[in-house]
């Protein structure tokens, strides 16, 4: 399934009215700022349809929603075998007493209908079981083949209502798929939905590719590749597959990243052993040099409001994080802990910067405020590297590689996600090994 991004294919028909006009009470809510908390028990019922095809899609949607909610670590979907009330009678009204009996705090119900015009109409409702109250009611209309994205949109609506934060399920991941022994690895670009579905390779593996990043529109990916012994930054159109060398630089270009408005790519260029940070205007192709220091300057990342850039430099003797204005002025060091700091990435919310830290043989993924305060390490390992933010700034993805043992086994690279709280660390399953994940914005 190739869904052109940026094209709205989903018509949200209406917000369904609450069936019961129950008065406001203590809200059913998931607090995602706390550390570990018990996940909320939620019952996700298969969407009800009359026809076999509707029944099947209704079941598929419920499974995808259930898996999304479970992976978030905030919800605990209840085994459908425990359900007492049938989907058919649920069309009329939930029997809240029966759902309380199986300890469901929240309930997801819905209907699905294939229509003569080729469109599929889906209604879904989220219920507060204890209050006996509808929390969300939405109706969607789309082509049946987009049922999976619809499931992600339903998941996002549930997440948003229960946490107060935007969801991150209707998103994609671009990453480097790896296969073969470390000394002869084939590394190529691959893309998939946030839950691993719709996986496909974007490059054929003939050239070494690294560090892909999405444009804000998701139409393009910028990445590093070595083609004909020339290490350079490239631009790839996701929909057409067209690849383009970005800029005419005399030295290696690497570490690219889009500006928040998508109009620029910021990157490093190395010439005669010295790396500096440049920005390129994609419309005029004008290149501006931002740093001027004999040290290594790399891994630049814009603040989401486009006002500042955080980057990695060893100008002070070892790798640390620095923040500067977008014209390169007012360079300030922000990392001061022991060890080395690398790969800073500004949160889409603007409040934090994620990074890789290396200290005494261990690697860490951590976050700090843009002024360097309140550093927190979220996870560690022999090698963990390259955090990327979910668009809501609450979840991070990165990759983890195991050491190679004396018999040459190991060196396995896998993608992982973790909550900003440091909880709910999980492998993001990929067909082959994986590294360098980049999380897309929410698909429009």
């Amino acid at each position, binding site marked *: 399934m190739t869904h052109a991004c940026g094209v709205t294919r989903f018509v949200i028909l209406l917000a369904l009215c609450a069936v019961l006009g129950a008065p406001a009470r203590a809200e059913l809510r998931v607090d995602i700022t706390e550390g570990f908390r018990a996940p909320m028990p939620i019952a996700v019922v298969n969407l009800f349809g009359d026809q076999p095809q509707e029944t099947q899609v209704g079941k598929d949607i419920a499974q995808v929603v259930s898996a999304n909610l479970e992976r978030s670590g905030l919800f605990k979907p209840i085994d459908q075998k425990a359900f007492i009330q049938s989907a058919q009678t649920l069309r009329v009204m939930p029997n809240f007493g029966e759902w309380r009996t199986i300890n469901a705090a929240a309930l997801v119900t819905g209907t699905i209908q294939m229509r003569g015009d080729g469109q599929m109409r889906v209604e879904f409702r989220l219920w507060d079981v204890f209050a006996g109250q509808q929390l969300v009611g939405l109706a969607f209309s789309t082509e049946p083949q987009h049922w999976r994205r619809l499931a992600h949109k339903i998941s996002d609506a549930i997440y948003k209502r229960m946490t107060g934060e935007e969801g991150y399920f209707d998103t994609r991941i671009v990453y480097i798929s790896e296969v*073969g*022994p*470390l*000394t*002869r*690895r084939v*590394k190529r670009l691959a893309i998939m939905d946030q839950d691993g579905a719709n996986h496909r390779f974007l490059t054929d593996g003939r050239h*070494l590719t*690294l*560090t892909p990043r999405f444009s804000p529109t998701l139409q393009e990916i910028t990445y*590093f590749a*070595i083609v004909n*012994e020339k*290490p350079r930054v490239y631009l790839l159109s996701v929909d057409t597959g067209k690849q383009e060398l970005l800029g005419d630089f005399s*030295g*290696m270009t*690497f*570490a690219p990243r889009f500006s928040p408005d998508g109009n620029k790519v910021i990157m*490093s260029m*190395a010439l*005669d*052993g*010295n*790396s500096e940070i440049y920005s390129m205007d994609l419309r005029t192709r004008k290149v501006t040099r931002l740093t001027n220091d004999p040290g*290594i300057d*790399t*891994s630049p990342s814009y603040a989401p409001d486009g006002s500042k850039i955080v980057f*990695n430099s*060893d100008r002070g003797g*070892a*790798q640390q994080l620095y923040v500067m204005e977008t014209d390169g002025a007012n360079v300030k060091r922000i990392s001061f802990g022991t060890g*080395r700091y*690398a*790969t800073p990435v500004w949160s889409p919310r603007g409040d934090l910067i994620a990074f*890789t830290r*290396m200290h005494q*043989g261990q690697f860490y993924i951590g976050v700090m405020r843009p002024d360097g305060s309140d550093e927190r390490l979220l996870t560690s390992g*022999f*090698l963990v*590297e*390259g955090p990327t933010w979910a668009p809501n700034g609450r979840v991070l993805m990165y990759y983890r*590689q195991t*050491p*190679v*043992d*004396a*018999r*040459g*086994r*190991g*060196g396995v690279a896998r993608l992982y996600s973790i909550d900003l709280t440091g909880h709910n660390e999980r492998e993001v399953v990929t067909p082959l090994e994986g590294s*360098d994940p980049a999380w897309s914005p929410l698909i429009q």
Partner: protein
Amino acid sequence: MNLKMIVGAAVAVFMLAACESTPETKATSTGSGSGQAAAPAPAPAAPAPMAKPAGPRPGSQEELNAQYGDRVFFDYDKSDVRADAAKTLDGWAAWLQKNGSARLTVEGHCDERGTKEYNLALGDRRANAVKNYLVARGVNANRLTGISYGKEKPTVLGSNEDAWAKNRRGVAVVN
């Protein structure tokens, strides 16, 4: 030359001879199956394949490898040319003088103990340090090309000091 330096040089030559068994790029695939653990060949028995009677073709990669070795090593997070690399690099410079039409690509590599983007920059620094050394020895800069592979192409499989030391390298590839 005092005794200490001679010993140092001898050690360097020995290390280089040991490395010949794992030639970089081209002419690779020594037949060993892929998944097999190409362990970091420890001390015992590394019978350096000495030049056959015929000898390698003048100006070839094989000749450079046989005479001087194709690589030099760097310290962790450093790009300074080490003292034990001087003899090899002087050899490359002499070899380039003798083979006036030969060109070298100098690859800069890193161990796995760093981040990808920083290591691309560090590998570039290492390639550049080797190039600068050769230019200082009279080699025309336009016969040299540098390229960084960062930590992406280790030559020795292993997560230990010995493997890391061998992976932090500058490699000469004859064009």
